[in-house]
């Protein structure tokens, strides 16, 4: 790719980017969220057109105007959010993506092709299963099969490990190494330094749309890369002062919750939470965290068990009642649950508080109060917007998250339930949010933090629980040495391990 530039709404996503990949090589594309990595790859894959620049394959300049063409050129992409049809079966999804699917009876004819591929790469997936029945790792494998079936010489993987268990990550690495040996090329997009160093041969670092560094992974280290990525030295540990625990705020007792598909999602979870404490629940997304958070905040029914806040039973109360007990929630799916996209910023700023006396009187809303409050949040949390009369959907993801956090924190909650709050945020916003969580902790609140980011968990939490398949594998103090095997626990191992040096 030479001199690729692309802008959206006046914001430069890519500025004159040039890079190249050879066969049998794994190139890492490193950068924070919003650096332009996905945009660049979407251009390569044909979903976007560059404003300027050229793409050359095997030395010949090409124009890729849609994914079909890039597939024909031998480029395959596995997106961060899988491009799969949940309600359809594996074979139907493959048939959809395969370029030579026959017109009549496609399912039957493709099955043989897939079978031979499966043998070669050791995929064992039931072709008739529906996608929603598969684990994240299995779904990813379907995506990879699709790309390989189309004869991809170059495979692009966008943040592939964000939804995998450590074991599945190992399996993925094996597959990638095999592909490399076979002469395929891989572009590996990630913001995780460990993976880049481990998996890639070379790495290109993007920051705010431009290339700020290139290196061979054998000749550099994490600190250098991190500095390139952010432009300054990243402090890997935030200092967290020790605080004595206060009164008990939350007690959860043998909670059982059912998930969307009718299967049990949380199976007998018990724990408690105190003032001046951040309690982390570590685990790969999809192991019951969302359902547990929703049960505590009242959005989802608790089938059995009891939850109390400050001694009062809040099990299965309405979200509003639970909110009135001082429980705030930063939801996992911010856009889906946290905002009304077409309404203005100030409408969204009081989404959960609109019934409070300070914003409403009898039947009417006190809009001048509302607007002041909103301006306060925007200023305090540095939400980037040209006015509070802006529709909230025009803001970037990070700024929406800041508004939601500001909204939830501004009422000094007893308990803040934060579900993956920094997912998808850039480093600046992430640091900001984490500082705020620590601030809340100091002010006497209890924070329940759900996160997949182990760095974040260790930085912020006083106690850590590991969740897998709806159960806690264990609850530990943050300095418990058994946490060195947290990866194993996240993958389901329950035995208390001895650390391997």
């Amino acid at each position, binding site marked *: 790719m030479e001199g690729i530039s692309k802008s959206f709404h006046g914001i430069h996503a890519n500025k004159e980017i040039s890079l190249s990949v050879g066969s049998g090589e794994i190139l890492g594309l490193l950068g924070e969220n919003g650096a332009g990595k996905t945009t660049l790859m979407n251009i390569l894959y044909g979903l976007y057109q560059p404003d300027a620049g050229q793409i050359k394959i095997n030395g010949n300049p090409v124009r890729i105007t849609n994914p079909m063409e890039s597939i024909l050129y031998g480029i395959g992409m596995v997106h961060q959010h899988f491009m799969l049809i949940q309600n359809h079966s594996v074979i139907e999804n493959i048939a959809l993506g395969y370029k030579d699917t026959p017109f009549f009876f496609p399912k039957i004819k493709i099955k043989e092709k897939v079978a031979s591929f499966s043998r070669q790469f050791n995929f064992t997936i039931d072709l008739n299963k529906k996608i929603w029945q598969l684990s994240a790792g299995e779904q990813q494998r379907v995506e990879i099969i699709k790309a390989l079936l189309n004869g991809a010489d170059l495979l692009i993987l966008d943040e592939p490990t964000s939804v995998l268990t450590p074991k599945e990550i190992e399996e993925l690495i094996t597959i990638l190494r095999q592909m490399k040996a076979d002469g395929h090329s891989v572009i590996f997009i990630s913001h995780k330094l460990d993976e880049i160093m481990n998996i890639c041969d070379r790495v290109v670092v993007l920051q705010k749309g431009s290339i700020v560094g290139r290196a061979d992974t054998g000749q550099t280290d994490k600190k250098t890369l991190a500095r390139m990525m952010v432009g300054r030295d990243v402090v890997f540990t935030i200092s967290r002062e020790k605080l004595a625990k206060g009164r008990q705020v939350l007690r959860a007792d043998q909670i059982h919750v059912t998930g969307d598909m009718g299967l049990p999602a949380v199976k007998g979870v018990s724990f408690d939470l105190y003032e001046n404490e951040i309690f982390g629940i570590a685990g790969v997304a999809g192991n019951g965290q969302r359902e547990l958070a929703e049960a505590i905040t009242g959005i989802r029914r608790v089938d059995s068990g009891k939850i109390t806040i400050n001694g009062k039973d809040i099990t299965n109360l309405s*979200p509003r009642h639970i909110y009135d007990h001082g429980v705030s929630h930063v939801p996992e799916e911010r856009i*889906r*649950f946290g905002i*009304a996209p077409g*309404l203005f910023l100030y409408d969204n700023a009081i989404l959960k508080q*609109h019934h409070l006396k300070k914003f*409403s009187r009898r039947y*009417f809303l006190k809009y001048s109060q509302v607007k002041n409050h909103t301006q306060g949040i925007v200023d305090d949390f540095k939400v980037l917007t040209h006015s509070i009369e802006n529709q909230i959907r*025009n803001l970037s993801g990070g700024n929406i998250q800041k508004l939601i956090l500001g909204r939830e924190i501004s009422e000094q909650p007893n308990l803040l339930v934060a579900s993956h709050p920094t997912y998808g945020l850039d480093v600046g916003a992430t640091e900001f949010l984490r500082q705020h969580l620590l601030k809340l902790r100091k002010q006497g609140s209890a924070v329940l933090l759900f996160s997949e980011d182990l760095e974040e968990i260790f930085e912020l939490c006083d106690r850590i629980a590991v969740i897998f398949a709806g159960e806690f594998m264990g609850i530990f103090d943050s300095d418990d040495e058994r946490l060195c095997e947290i990866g194993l626990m996240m993958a389901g191992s329950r035995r208390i391990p001895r650390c391997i040096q």
Partner: protein
Amino acid sequence: MIRLSYTDRYQITRLRALMTNIFSLAAGLFVISIIFLIAGVNPLFAISEIFQGSFGSMYGFKETITKAIPLILIGAGLTLAFRAKFWNIGAEGQLLMGAIFSTWTGLAFGNTLPSFAIIPLMFAAGFLGGALWGIIPAILKIKYAINEVISTLMLNYICAHILTMLIVGPWKGASRFGFPGTDNLPDAATLSVIPGSRIHYITLMLALACAAILALAIYKTRFGYEARVVGENPDAGKYAGINFFKTTLVLMAISGGLAGLAGVGEVAGIHHYLGYPTSVSSGYGFTAIIVAWLAKLNPLYAVISGIFFAGILVGGDAIQISLGLPAATVEIVNGTLLIFLIMGEYFLHNKITVTFSRA
């Protein structure tokens, strides 16, 4: 080579919205003219006849206001429902139910109660009837997840048949000499009109008041806020602790109730008896949908929008007589204008840039 690219437009000012609406209507009229041309009608003559008929004469203007009354009432109610993304296509049925309830009240008590007592009673009954008919689809949607487009439509037909059943059966008036319809309402139970016209001014004032109250409700009350949030994102509403059930029930009660009031107006103000469904309402429930859409779901604008479409209805009657065009012509006008309004919205929300480049 010409390349068209579109980008989101962030600043939508009221002026721009207004200009877009006007352009859309103009474009729509243009296409309607072409249709007329093909049908062998002189479009300029036809369109001028429409406007002459509705606004050009005193008589026409009075008729326009008369027809605007139900459109404003129903249209305002629909702006509320549509904002919550509850597609109430059943205003026809809600209107008829209001007519039924109020006629019963009028016939039952009209001879014994004085005007100032029976009229409010009739309006209340009409509101109740419409509200009931509006709540049914709300319940069906909440409890059984039945698409409200279908349920409200089915209820339209069901109500029309109920009405017919009543007026050929148990409610058939002795004074009708075998023709279907109820007896005439007692004098006390009829609405007075502005002399020299058919404008039943009490309903008119009610309509204007309702539009104003509704505007207040949508923009300034908690209920209006909750309805808007629910329309934007029901999941966010759940998360915000908004009671979807209660909110939907109340807004449909209001929307249906307003349509019911329109029904009262038609019966007590114009016909003075309950006849066939098509004589009570000439498609007001459907036309009001366009009224609400043109008003950009703002109840205050619905007043202007209602008068505009009432003008089209009256004008449509006029050219029916003078040009011999069938009644369905009005539907063509309505449909075309609505399509162009939709297309106009696209230009409102997107900035189209045309770039010319070589090669």
